[in-house]
């Protein structure tokens, strides 16, 4: 296995505050990787650095062998990195179905001209998109709310819709920002199952989470605290690591 995403010396400062310090990070192709850490550890910042929302203060980001340190969000998406957001913004005035079909912006891509003139390619693309979107909704258990406006969905469904949207971009690397946040136990069990199925589809997954239930399906874990890496290894190793226990679990052992 080769590494799909790699960062070296990644640093981000907001004014005088260093939220990410010299982070070296790697994701192997085909694994489910966890990025864990307490609140304010810099997990969401890491997401925003990778996806081009923020530019790093120093350091480099490589994806599939190419440097993407300075890429913009839509370029990162074009390279095959799909993401969800922690606060989970949606296209609220679109239906669930439209939210997902919208996400097929790149693959398959219709040019502006093709879309305007409604060419054969465009019509075929749209047909494919409609079918494929329904498959994703089925896979993530959203088929029964297909025609609801996204803003009217309960919170847990909105979170899953965020995942559906990211999946529709056909990512090689799927980055999930707290996918279990605010979910009830049933939805958590469902989501964990769905995430582990994504690995079977050949998608590499990076999960930022502080719900420990996610550990069961992770292949490897990186733990950060105050923007610095404090652990790298397997979930079992993490559970027994003294540094992690003292910083993350509050030094109870």
């Amino acid at each position, binding site marked *: 296995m080769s590494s799909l995403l790699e960062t070296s010396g990644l640093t981000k400062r907001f004014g005088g505050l260093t939220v990410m310090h010299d982070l070296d990070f790697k994701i192997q192709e085909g694994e489910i990787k966890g990025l864990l850490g307490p609140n304010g550890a810099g997990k969401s910042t890491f997401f925003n650095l990778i996806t081009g929302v923020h530019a790093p203060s120093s350091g480099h980001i490589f994806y599939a062998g190419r440097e993407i340190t300075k890429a913009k969000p*839509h370029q990162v998406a074009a390279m095959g990195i799909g993401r969800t957001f922690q606060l989970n913004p949606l296209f609220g005035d679109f239906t669930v179905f439209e939210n997902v079909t919208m996400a097929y912006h790149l693959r398959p891509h219709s040019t502006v001209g093709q879309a305007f003139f409604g060419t054969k390619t465009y019509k075929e693309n749209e047909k494919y998109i409609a079918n494929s979107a329904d498959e994703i909704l089925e896979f993530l258990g959203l088929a029964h709310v297909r025609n609801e406006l996204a803003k009217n969905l309960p919170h847990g469904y909105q979170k899953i819709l965020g995942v559906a949207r990211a999946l529709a971009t056909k990512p090689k690397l799927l980055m999930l920002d707290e996918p279990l946040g605010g979910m009830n136990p049933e939805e958590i069990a469902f989501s964990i199952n769905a995430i582990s199925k994504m690995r079977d589809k050949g998608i590499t997954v990076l999960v930022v989470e502080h719900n420990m239930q996610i550990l069961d399906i992770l292949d490897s874990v990186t733990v950060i605290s105050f923007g610095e890496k404090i652990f790298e290894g397997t979930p079992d190793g993490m559970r027994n690591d003294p540094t992690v226990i003292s910083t993350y679990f509050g030094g109870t052992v």
Partner: protein
Amino acid sequence: MKKSGFKTSLPFLILLVAFIALPMFLNSRSWIDIFVTIVFNMVAAVSLRVILLSGNLSFAQGCFMGVGAYTAGMLAVHLGLPMWLTIPLGAVMATLIGLITGWPFARLKTVYFSMGTMFMGQAIMLLISAWKAAGGAQGLNRIPSLSSELKGVAELLGVKGYQAAYFVILILAIVSLVVMFRFEHCRIGATLRALAQSEDVAASIGVNPTFYRLLAVGVACFFIGLMGGVQAHYMTSISYSSYSMNLTLWLIMYMMIGGSGKFIGPMVGAILITLVEGVSNLLTSLSGASNSEAFVAFSRWIGENSAYTPFLTAAVLLVVAYLLPTGLVGIPDTIRAAKAKRAEMREIEAMMKEGGDNA
């Protein structure tokens, strides 16, 4: 979500018939002037809405009509270019200037975009007003007339020159509207709406926000510039003051009163308000030739009070904003929603009553 084709196209068909048939009967120069103004305002207001699809309200849109008009007018006056060249070049120039000035503004959002474009529009028109070749404060005069150009064709068809000009303008307007309609109702329009709802999410699925924002600006400026170009040749003299911020504010009024949620909204707004204004002017001009005392008195009253039109329109706008946020064309939907809600309430009441009876 997809309505039957006939139901959606019926209002458009009615408008089309009205715009073809009415000017055949009401064919005095004054009436045709009113129809032409309606057509210009209609396309201009729709073009404003194209930019609004991406979530931004442009306050410079009226000035691009001026750019189109002045480009066409100056090319014709100074270089003697023919109309079939000057009018499209007016549209192209409006697009170019729209894209160049829109590029830095494309990263601004909502109220900041509006503020930026507001000052930029004013700046462009100020430049034109200070430009000697553009006629300066006197405006640009002696632009070749579209009506005279079409005299030959008009005679052949048995209509007047200005009537023929109206139909040429109508055809250009229909083409513009059809293009903008299709633009909105394919994937491009959906992408713009997505951008308006969340730029972060749109970028995360690979939408290039700058590209799509500029695409909307480019399309909108092209068609308003096209209308400006024709307007220069229809009116034969233009003044920078008619493309000031006032024009943009009127366009925004048309859109808000008609309803910005639907394509036909700004069209309805433009037609109604321009008609009210145009007819009051027409009455004033007609009253001289009339020998009915009541009519003369009425038109004098209208004429004396026509200065209040903006206030009246503003009052209407306020009422619309409070009571009908979806505008005039949103009324059927509002009624339907209210009915559905009442039915639901009745159902709940019935259920509660039943529950009470059982207890």
